[in-house]
């Protein structure tokens, strides 16, 4: 006791008190600094919303809710509607997901179960690297290499083949341009593929080996283990990853802009040119003149932001829940 009191007395010198006070003041300043940096992030988010609403205001006032349901797009008469762009965005993203999710999960199964062990890391790394390739690269490849090839070797024979079949002739009819809605969806699916497969593989690897071994021990085949044990366990992560990919597909600009043809009409045929929200903005923004053209394009951006926000927020909340579960389990 006496020792403790002595130490206490030795420590409570004026120098120490000054040092503690100085340290405390520095702490408070530093904390405030990091706090304001965190606030910057929130301010940017609020700024994005506010500036989009502000920039779109003239169009919102002029068209109201009819902007979303109108198919008009006439810069000369200043009549604008978002429906063709929304339609293009939703259809290309839907088709891209339809193709990329099964193939991406297939790649993940291949990488976690089938691929010879020495090849797993190199192939996995290659796929992750490809996920980082800028979208403009996919765009330029789509325009110069894929679209011409697709036009000659797939579209033309396919259009001929379905020419007399009811329904199909409408969905896949029309002149084969090479570029169009379907081409954009294909490029988009190739683009989000590495993303989906690397997220899915990561989630598959979190499945405890014990669970799989138990299933194998009961006599399950490899497929049954994947389908009934691994996938249900990894469900939240796979869906969250797929939704992140959907968010990416919805907002993807350059890969789509190059190959979609920028046509503000809704065509029955999937091979016909179309447009998406982001492609309309990228294609027309710098040429937009007049009081309503630019605001209409910004309002398109606002709609895109809203849609991707809903998708991404859902994805994030699912992934947070997953993290909490993983944290609790370990």
């Amino acid at each position, binding site marked *: 006791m006496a020792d403790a009191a002595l130490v206490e007395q030795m420590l409570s010198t004026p120098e120490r008190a000054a040092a503690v006070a100085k*340290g405390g003041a*520095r702490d408070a300043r*530093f*904390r405030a*600094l*990091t*706090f304001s*940096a*965190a606030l*910057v*992030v*929130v301010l*940017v*988010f609020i700024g*994005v919303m506010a*500036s*989009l609403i502000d*920039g779109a205001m003239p169009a919102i006032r002029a068209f109201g809710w009819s902007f979303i349901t109108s198919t008009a797009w006439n810069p000369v008469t200043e009549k604008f509607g978002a429906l063709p762009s929304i339609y293009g965005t939703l259809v290309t993203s839907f088709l891209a997901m339809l193709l990329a999710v099964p*193939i*991406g*999960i297939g*790649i993940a199964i*291949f990488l976690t179960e*089938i*691929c010879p062990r020495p090849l797993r890391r190199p192939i996995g*790394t290659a796929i992750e*690297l*490809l996920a*980082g*390739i*800028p*979208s*403009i*690269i*996919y*765009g*330029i*490849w789509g325009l*110069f290499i894929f679209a011409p090839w697709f036009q000659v070797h797939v579209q033309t024979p396919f259009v001929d083949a379905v020419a007399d079949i009811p329904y199909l002739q409408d969905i896949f009819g029309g002149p084969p341009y090479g570029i169009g809605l379907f081409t954009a969806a294909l490029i988009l699916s*190739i683009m989000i*593929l590495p993303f989906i497969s690397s997220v899915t593989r990561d989630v598959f690897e979190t499945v405890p080996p014990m669970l799989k071994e138990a299933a194998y021990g009961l006599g399950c*085949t*490899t*497929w*049954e283990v994947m389908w009934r044990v691994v996938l249900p366990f990894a469900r939240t992560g796979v869906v969250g990853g797929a939704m992140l990919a959907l*968010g990416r597909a919805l*907002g*993807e*600009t*350059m890969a789509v802009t190059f190959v979609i043809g920028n046509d503000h009409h809704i065509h029955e045929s999937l091979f016909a040119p179309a447009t998406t929200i*982001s492609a309309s*903005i990228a294609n027309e*923004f*710098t040429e937009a003149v007049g009081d309503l053209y*630019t605001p209409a394009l910004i309002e398109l*951006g606002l709609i*895109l*932001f809203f849609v991707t926000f809903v998708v991404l*927020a859902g*994805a994030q909340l699912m992934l947070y829940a997953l993290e909490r579960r993983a944290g609790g389990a370990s």
Partner: protein
Amino acid sequence: MSVVNSGLYMRRKFRSTALLTLSVVAAVFGIDWLFFILGALFYNGFTSLDLKVFTSMTPPPGDDGGLANAIFGSVVMSGLAVLLATPIGLLAGTYLAEYGRYGRLAFFVRFVNDILLSAPSIITGLFIYVLVVYQTPASYGTKLCTAVLGSNCFMGHFSAVAGVLSLMVIVIPVVVRTSENMLLLVPNGLREAAAALGAPRSSVIRTVTWRAARAGIVTGVLLAVARISGETAPLLFTALNNNFWSTDLSQPIASLPVVIYLYATSAYEYWHRLAWAGALLITATVLTISIIARLLQPKRS
């Protein structure tokens, strides 16, 4: 008849083999596309690449030229964006990992940051467009900017500054996310040991945790560089383009992605060649940076 040869067993085994084969096919199919793209890019890129690409300016129609001003513009804008955004991102990540942690506000910041991280980059471009480019001479922002910077004011028109700002909006969330993750990997024992020596918390963070997480933070910054070096959409309506060598940040400036976009969609064959050369340069940069980042990345437990 043994169990192994029963119909049910054979059916299950067949089903498993068939579906696994299908997933191999999916993998081969999916990975092939990615290699086709890289193959076409390297072939067209290397056949279009020559010294003039690095030394000449972007040409007007009908003329010969290179990409020198676009390369310069990309390097300047990406460099400035990373330089300015990294401190903000690092500090915000520090708040989340060291101070906020489980608080309500930290949860909200984390959520908003993750949304910004995956929000479409074209939205970022629109944001800075409205904030900077769309301003009229009469707006308060423009008046303030003119008062401070004089004739160098960047408000009210396309400029390199606007391009830098839009890239910063992309860099900040990436750095926040990675630095938070990396700081959380630092063992608490280190913090406690430093605190027990009597170091104030801010010194603990600056001299111990940041240092311990340095490799990871550098990785995050590199990933952010890789991410923005191919960004086109946000630059289209902020920095626009410039056919001349420009070092004035208050004026429009060329960048590789925008030049690739404009040239690839043009009707001229030699512009297409330049677009391929630029695409190769960007991809090579992104791949190199990503590989370096991967080598630096600390092993996760």
